[in-house]
């Protein structure tokens, strides 16, 4: 599907679509008691931490508005900033590649790795490469990609999928992680316990080997500064820093919306991101690099810029603000739906509220028609979003597109009938009187069809003898 004729993210590559719709995937997820406990604990902790550190900043609201304004400026002049970025990266000794979609981006990276003769790469945690399915594409070409972010490594070792933007293994507890390590990690002691320090040590030993031998690293980026061509990765563990500095070749992959005009703009985001994301005042590691520095760090640097549905998203005035997203995951942590289902139910690397508006736009709503409905519109996401994306209004807008592009006849007929009854005082008065017919059914514990969803876990209210308007008229 295209919006105004712009190509969307192609099917069959990457992770933007699930193989089931949201309600059916969510049904299984909410029945998993262990999953719900893991998620409930993890999101409650991070929610509280975020609330504390955000509340310390007196001008938080102004910062958010500044963040939104900078991103909107970038989106309005994306072509200019991207060309500036390219020119600066090239001037600093890097090479820039452009990819229309996931397939092209994967092909570029595969070719670049093959050119080095290496069959292994180490990876910095990155949403962009998950979105395009880079690891799978590299594997098809016989190249092994090793995730070096601890949570991402856990997911990779377990042949699982990430379920959270920041903490991809949020759905697993310590015991489950220990089991994955014992089963999948070579050289790990058989009596490994679930003590966090022991788990971290095991991962460190495993990863150190990779860092010392890898000749190629692949990263995403958090920000790209157009004025100097500088790229930035923000992280907690320092493993990203290892990847960004040790190997000879560095390939960074980014969606085209990630560019920022100036260093001064970065100041805003380096305040917004850590507090929103991990609830820290400042993240432990912030790495910057500009092209190639002779004798220091990777001597061969490539930047791969990809679209994969972003221009199509940009074309929709009511949907484009989703491209402001800095992937902090604050909206996931406060979302009452995400808290119950976890990330896998969304079928995309982008779960939660932002996923419900971004994935359908990148793929076209026709290929993700259930996601815009995966929300109660409670508004918690908008309150915490550091770039003030009005996700609830965007969800409503996308629902309208779903109804137009993927109509559900029975629902449309019901909606039309109700609107018809509501559009005349006389019809409405009679419709409300007719509700009385439902009185004997109110005790039913199981209604047929769609209404059965209600009675599965709730009782029905009993319709009254008399509507309010009839009472008022008699009064």
């Amino acid at each position, binding site marked *: 599907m295209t919006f105004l004729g712009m190509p969307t993210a192609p099917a069959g590559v990457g992770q933007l679509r699930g193989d089931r719709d949201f309600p059916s995937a969510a049904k299984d997820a909410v029945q998993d008691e262990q999953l719900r406990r893991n998620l409930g604990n993890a999101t409650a902790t991070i929610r509280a931490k975020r609330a504390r550190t955000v509340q310390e900043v007196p001008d938080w609201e102004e910062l958010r508005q500044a963040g939104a304004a900078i991103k909107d400026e970038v989106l309005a002049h994306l072509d200019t900033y991207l060309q500036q970025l390219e020119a600066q990266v090239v001037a600093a000794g890097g090479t820039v590649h452009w990819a229309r979609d996931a397939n092209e981006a994967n092909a570029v990276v595969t070719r670049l790795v093959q050119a080095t003769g290496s069959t292994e790469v180490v990876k910095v945690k990155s949403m962009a490469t998950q979105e395009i399915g880079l690891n799978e594409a590299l594997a098809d070409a016989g190249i092994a990609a090793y995730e070096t972010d601890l949570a991402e490594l856990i997911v990779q070792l377990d042949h699982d999928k990430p379920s959270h933007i920041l903490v991809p293994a949020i759905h697993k507890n310590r015991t489950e992680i220990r089991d994955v390590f014992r089963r999948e990690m070579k050289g790990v002691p058989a009596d490994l316990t679930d003590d966090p320090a022991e788990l971290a040590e095991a991962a460190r030993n495993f990863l150190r080997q990779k860092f010392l031998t890898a000749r190629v690293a692949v990263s995403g980026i958090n920000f790209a500064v157009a004025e100097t061509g500088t790229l930035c990765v923000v992280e907690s563990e320092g493993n990203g820093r290892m990847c960004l500095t040790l190997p000879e070749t560095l390939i960074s992959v980014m969606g085209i919306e990630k560019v920022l005009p100036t260093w001064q703009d970065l100041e805003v985001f380096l305040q917004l991101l850590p507090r929103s994301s991990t609830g820290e005042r400042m993240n432990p590691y912030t790495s910057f690099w500009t092209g190639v520095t002779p004798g220091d760090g990777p001597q061969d640097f490539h930047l791969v810029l990809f679209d994969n549905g972003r221009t199509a998203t940009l074309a929709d005035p009511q949907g484009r603000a989703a491209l402001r997203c800095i992937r902090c995951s604050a909206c996931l942590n406060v979302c009452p739906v995400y808290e119950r289902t976890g990330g896998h139910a969304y079928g995309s690397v982008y779960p939660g509220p932002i996923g419900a508006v971004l994935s359908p736009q990148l793929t076209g709503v026709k290929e993700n028609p259930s996601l815009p409905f995966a929300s109660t519109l409670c*508004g918690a996401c908008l309150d915490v979003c550091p770039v003030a994306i009005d996700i609830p209004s965007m969800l409503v807008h996308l629902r309208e597109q779903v109804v137009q592009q993927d109509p559900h006849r029975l629902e449309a007929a019901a909606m039309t009938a109700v609107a018809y009854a509501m559009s005349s005082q006389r019809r409405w008065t009679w419709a409300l009187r007719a*509700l009385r017919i439902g009185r004997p059914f109110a005790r039913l514990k199981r209604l047929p069809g769609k209404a059965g969803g209600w009675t599965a876990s709730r009782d029905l209210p009993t319709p009254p003898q008399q509507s309010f308007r009839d009472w008022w008229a008699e009064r």
Partner: protein
Amino acid sequence: MRVALFVTCLVDGMFPEVGQATVTLLERLGITVEVPLSQTCCGQMHVNTGYAELAKPLVRSYAKSFQGYDYVVTPSGSCAGAVRHQHPALVPGQQVPPTYELSEFLIDVLGVEDVGASYPHRVTYHPTCHSLRLLRVGDRPLRLLRNVRGIDLVDLPDAHSCCGFGGTFAVKNPDVSAAMLADKVRHVRSTGAEVCSAGDASCLMQIGGGLSRTGTGVRTVHLAEILASTA
């Protein structure tokens, strides 16, 4: 001052006692309430399900029904939110009097926090998402409740978390909705309250359905009913 009641479609058809209590309360405070019977629905269900076009006639008829009044008051945070936040975008440029949710009207327009009610029961209050995050009513409902004689008001744990109703969400995503409801019911029970109150009949329908199904014996009572009570 001409005040009209927007009773909302759900209260009109399913929970008339909430509308009656709102009338009783406002009249006790010396307000002459009028109910233009041409009113039907704010159109929120249609808009939020993706049928904005079908909602437009409802939005126009809302403006027509309430033309000429100084204030519209409604016992629903969600419907007040729809009128204030959705209507202007759907049908721009309509002349509509300001629409207030009940607690806003009492505190911001009438300037009363003690409405002279008495309600000798243990009550916990669910603040509802749209009152909190669309209207920003803050602690207005609690300020009103704290002034009720005889009430034993107890804090609801995780109060700000959604009850899982979400209009057609409850039908389209019944399992997630039920999981959210189960947590809300558990929190309500943990307070030992006899009554769970809220400023929205829709959320109360969801919470009440869960409380009744699980045999808790806890009743749901709308804010307007407590404030109207002089028992």
